[in-house]
């Protein structure tokens, strides 16, 4: 399985965020995205996840399930945690476990999905399963958000600064999880400002200032 | 409906609503007691019992 981006460009809010961008992520490989704020790290992740429009260039996932779109192979954990305060912790997780499930894609992912209570224990918030999510702290919300990665088997992980709000235990847990994912043949792209204790290729964004295009028509 | 029907209907609805209220109070009490028991079983102590300011 291989994820490649060729000559990618993206326009958001009328601004050319990046252009002519290439990258390649093979099975078992981690690509960390570096660059100052506003360099387009989050935008690139959203573009890969299908949440932002590709102005130019091409994104391809080789080895993916045939007629299943790229975004259904992808776990995306952004700054927003998609947690409903009125639902209990385990209800939130069970919902996403069911929604993000896909047989063909699960067959490709190295590790099988685990059930929500086990995922909560793995993330260290097992005892809070039946509590309303409204009472979670920021760090606990982040752990619940990351628990999504365990309850549905998807080969490609896109994590946007996942270490924010996590304490040292949380970060250790996260890195162990990513490490297990990669060793079982998964792919991961992580936008981060923190050095990751994992072998990783680096793609730095925002180095070349994209020259303003006179009249760029969004695709 | 004859007059009796109206009287019966009025008393029936009153009985249903009042019984519903009583049932709600009892059931709700049981639910809260169960949740409280479960929490105390897990060894979670409330913060200072005697503080008057807290409605807990």
């Amino acid at each position, binding site marked *: 399985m291989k994820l490649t981006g060729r000559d990618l460009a993206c326009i958001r809010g009328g601004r050319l965020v990046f252009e002519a961008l290439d990258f390649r992520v093979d099975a078992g490989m981690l690509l960390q995205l570096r660059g100052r704020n506003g360099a387009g790290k989050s935008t690139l992740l959203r573009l890969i996840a299908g949440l932002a429009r590709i102005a130019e260039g091409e994104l391809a996932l080789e080895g993916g399930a045939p007629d299943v779109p790229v975004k259904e192979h992808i776990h995306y954990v952004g700054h927003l945690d998609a947690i409903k*305060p*009125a639902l209990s912790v385990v209800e939130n997780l069970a919902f996403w476990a069911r929604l993000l499930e896909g047989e063909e894609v699960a067959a490709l992912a190295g590790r099988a999905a685990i059930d929500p209570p086990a995922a909560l*224990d793995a993330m*260290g*918030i*097992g*005892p*809070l399963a039946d*509590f*309303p999510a*409204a*009472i*979670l*702290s920021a760090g*606990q919300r982040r752990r619940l958000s990351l628990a999504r990665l365990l309850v549905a088997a998807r080969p490609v992980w896109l994590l946007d600064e996942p270490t924010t709000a996590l304490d040292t*235990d*949380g970060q250790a*847990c996260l890195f162990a999880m990513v490490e297990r994912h990669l060793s079982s043949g998964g792919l991961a792209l992580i936008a981060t400002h923190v050095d990751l204790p994992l072998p990783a290729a680096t793609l730095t964004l925002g180095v070349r200032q994209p020259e303003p295009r006179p009249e760029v028509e969004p695709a | *409906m004859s*007059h*009796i029907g*109206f*009287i019966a*209907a*009025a*008393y029936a*609805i*009153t009985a249903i*609503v*009042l019984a*519903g*209220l*009583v049932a*709600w*109070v*009892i059931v*709700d*009490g049981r639910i*809260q*007691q169960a*949740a*409280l028991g479960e*929490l*105390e079983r*897990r060894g*979670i102590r*409330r*913060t200072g*019992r*005697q503080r*008057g*300011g*807290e*409605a*807990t």
Partner: protein
Amino acid sequence: MLEFANPTRFMALSRSVLPWLWAAAAGVLAIGLVLAFRAPADYQQGLTVLIMYIHVPSAWLAMMCYAVIATSSVGTLVWRHPLADVSARAAAPIGACFTFLALVTGSLWGKPMWGTWWVWDARLTSVLLLFLMYLGLIALWRAFDDPARAARPVAILALVGFVNIPIIKFSVDWWNTLHQPASVFRFDGPTIDPSMLWPLMVMAVAFTLLFLAIHVAAMRNEILRRRVRAMRVKAASTLVPAE
């Protein structure tokens, strides 16, 4: 009122009082029903006067509940009494139920007398608006996640509502007489003669006792609910990750 200000002491005290309250309410209610059904039928309305024995107490309780909420709201805003919001929040659904009963029994009483289920009579209309005010209070309470945060806003709404009751009463009466549709019939009829007054009083006391019993029980539930919530927040904040 102040000596059992502390919720914990209230829980202990109410635990012992509650069984007596339930017993008293049931007893007086039974007596009231017996008296009501043995009272002579009204010469004009026939047997339907029996509905009065539950309609009038319901309407009184509807008003009384709102008064309880209003006084509790003063307790919340002025003295920041810990039990005030608990009392108001426990009383609102009960008040809404009694108001609903007053409306339904009023309509069931009106049908045999005026031939229509609902008449925009000044009294009934005011009770309808009171019902809407109850629903408004409950809706505002349910809009907040944290019950403690809901206390003061709802107290203000309750007091504003309470101050408005006489104004509403006056304007509805004026609106009613202004239009004076032919079909309106003076609601409560001639003065109630003594033989029927006595069962009515007993039924009113029975309903009041019932309200007190349910209200105290509901307050206990509300306190337990807040303890559960506080303990969950504490559990979450002191959670030591397993591994």
